[in-house]
């Protein structure tokens, strides 16, 4: 049953001819298509700007690199100054400590000498007074 009906459908749906002159009309429509596809994008037609000089081309990155270097060197210099200042302060503190120790030592020596020195014999006046 299906096969008979399918064959009937096949016969009814046989391809028909395209209208006369169809291919010519399509071909006639092609030049417009081609013309559209041949339009060169404005970006390509536009006169190219003069090439940038090497200086202009690299000025921005160079400035950035220079800024970075200055920042690094400045940082290092500040750090070095700070370290030197701290070292100087340390040396000064050390010197002061040595000085203090030296003075203390001298005073201790004097005290020791004073303690070790025999007491002087009393004078006549002193004897009379007592």
């Amino acid at each position, binding site marked *: *049953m*299906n096969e*008979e*009906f*399918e064959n*009937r*459908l*096949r*016969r*009814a*749906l*046989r*391809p*028909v*001819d*395209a*209208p006369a002159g*169809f*291919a*010519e*009309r*399509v*071909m006639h*429509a*092609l030049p417009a*298509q081609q013309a559209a*596809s041949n339009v060169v994008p404005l970006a390509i037609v536009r006169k190219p700007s003069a090439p940038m000089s090497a200086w202009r081309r690299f000025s921005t990155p160079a400035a950035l690199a220079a800024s970075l270097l200055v920042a690094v060197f400045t940082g290092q210099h500040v750090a070095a100054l700070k370290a030197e200042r701290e070292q100087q302060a340390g040396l000064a503190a050390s010197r002061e400590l040595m000085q203090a120790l030296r003075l203390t030592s001298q005073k201790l020596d004097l005290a020791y000498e004073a303690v070790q020195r025999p007491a002087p014999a009393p004078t006549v006046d002193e004897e009379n007074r007592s």
Partner: protein
Amino acid sequence: MKLDSAQAESPQLLERARRGDQAAFAALIRLHQSSVFSIGLRMLNRRDAAEDLAQDVFLQLYRKLDDIESLEHLGFWLRRVAANLAIDWLRRAAYTRGAPLEEGAEIPAPQTDQDPLMDRELVRLLGELAPAARAVMVLRYQEDRDVAEIAAALDMPVNTVKSHIKRSLTALRGKMIGAELITAEELS
């Protein structure tokens, strides 16, 4: 150029058309115009719309010639683009389902040895199917394509194609019997 000789030379035609040979491209159109126009006609039910669609398909082909790998691929590509473009047009309601034929623009009934009234009625009933089902039936019974190729052309699962065919055949047969153009006994 005669069509037969063009057909024999078509591998070269494709290559020449790719290189920009306009005569070769025109020969390729003549080889495939009937198939593409007929798909448009069965899908849209209007000759003017079918011609617009066919022209659109060949203009797209002109831009995509470099993508066409072989003659088999060319045929598949044309059927695929024509059917999908027709579905798209129908869905955009530019050509409504069941739109009346323009005055004097009736679809010519193919010359067959059977009742032309029945042929015309079958074609009319086909135009009442939903766009996707109609495309499936056109590719199956007009273009004589197998289910796998139809599925590939319309981006559908094979089972969906089979289901469209089965349901559409049942619907068409039912309507033909209802219109008393055929009898159930005639088909049994």
